[in-house]
C-alpha cells in the first residue's frame, strides 16, 4: 500500500494487531482485533479502538483527534491485507460503532480502492442487503473477501 501508515505488530495467530498513533495528543496505542463470528463460510469481525493504559481495556468512547486519522485508517486497512494473507478464504465484516465512524471506514476504503479492487471483493450493506461497493453510497457495514 502506498498510503502512509504506522509500523504495526501482530501475534502468531494474526488476529490481534497493535500500533501507536502519534500526534499532538501524544502516543496512543491502537488495537485491531479480528474475531471469528461464523464458521461456514468463515467470517471474522474487524474491530479496533484505543487501549486504555489504566485498565488494559479497549475504550471506544475516545475520539483521539490526534490529527492522523488517514494514517490510522490506512494502517487498519493494511492489517486486513495481512489478515487475509493468513486467512484467504475468510470474509471480513466491518461496521463502525457510530454512523460517522462507519462513514470513515467508507472513506478509508475509497482511498485505497485503486489498490484493492483487483484483489478483493468489497460489499456494502444497504437496505438490508449486500451490494458491490461503490463511491457515493452511504453503506451501513462492509464485507471484504479475497477474489
Amino acid at each position: 500500500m502506498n498510503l502512509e501508515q504506522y509500523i504495526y505488530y501482530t501475534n502468531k495467530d494474526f488476529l490481534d494487531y497493535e500500533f501507536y498513533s502519534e500526534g499532538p495528543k501524544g502516543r496512543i496505542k491502537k488495537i485491531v482485533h479480528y474475531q471469528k463470528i461464523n464458521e461456514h463460510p468463515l467470517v471474522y469481525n474487524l474491530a479496533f479502538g484505543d487501549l486504555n493504559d489504566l485498565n488494559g481495556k479497549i475504550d471506544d468512547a475516545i475520539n483521539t483527534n490526534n490529527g492522523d486519522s488517514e494514517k490510522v485508517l490506512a494502517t487498519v486497512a493494511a492489517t486486513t491485507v495481512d489478515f487475509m494473507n493468513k486467512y484467504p478464504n475468510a470474509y471480513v465484516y466491518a461496521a463502525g460503532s457510530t454512523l460517522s465512524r462507519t462513514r470513515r471506514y467508507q472513506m478509508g476504503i475509497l482511498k485505497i480502492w485503486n489498490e484493492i479492487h483487483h484483489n478483493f471483493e468489497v460489499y456494502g450493506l444497504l437496505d438490508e442487503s449486500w451490494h458491490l461497493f461503490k463511491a457515493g453510497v452511504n453503506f451501513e457495514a462492509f464485507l471484504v473477501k479475497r477474489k
Partner: protein
Amino acid sequence: MPTILKKEKRRKIKGQAVISPKVNSYSSDPYFEQKARNAKEAIEKFGLPPQNH
C-alpha cells in the same frame, strides 16, 4: 550503570506486519466481544452477498 535492553526477536512477513510475541490476545475484551455479537447478529439477519456478481 549501563542498561542492557533485551532486543525483541522479530521478523518481517510478506505484508507489513511485524510478528511479536508481545502482542496480546484481545478476544475477551468486553468491547470487542460486544462488537462481535453485533456483527454475528447482522450476518444472521442479512446473510452474505450472492456469489453471482
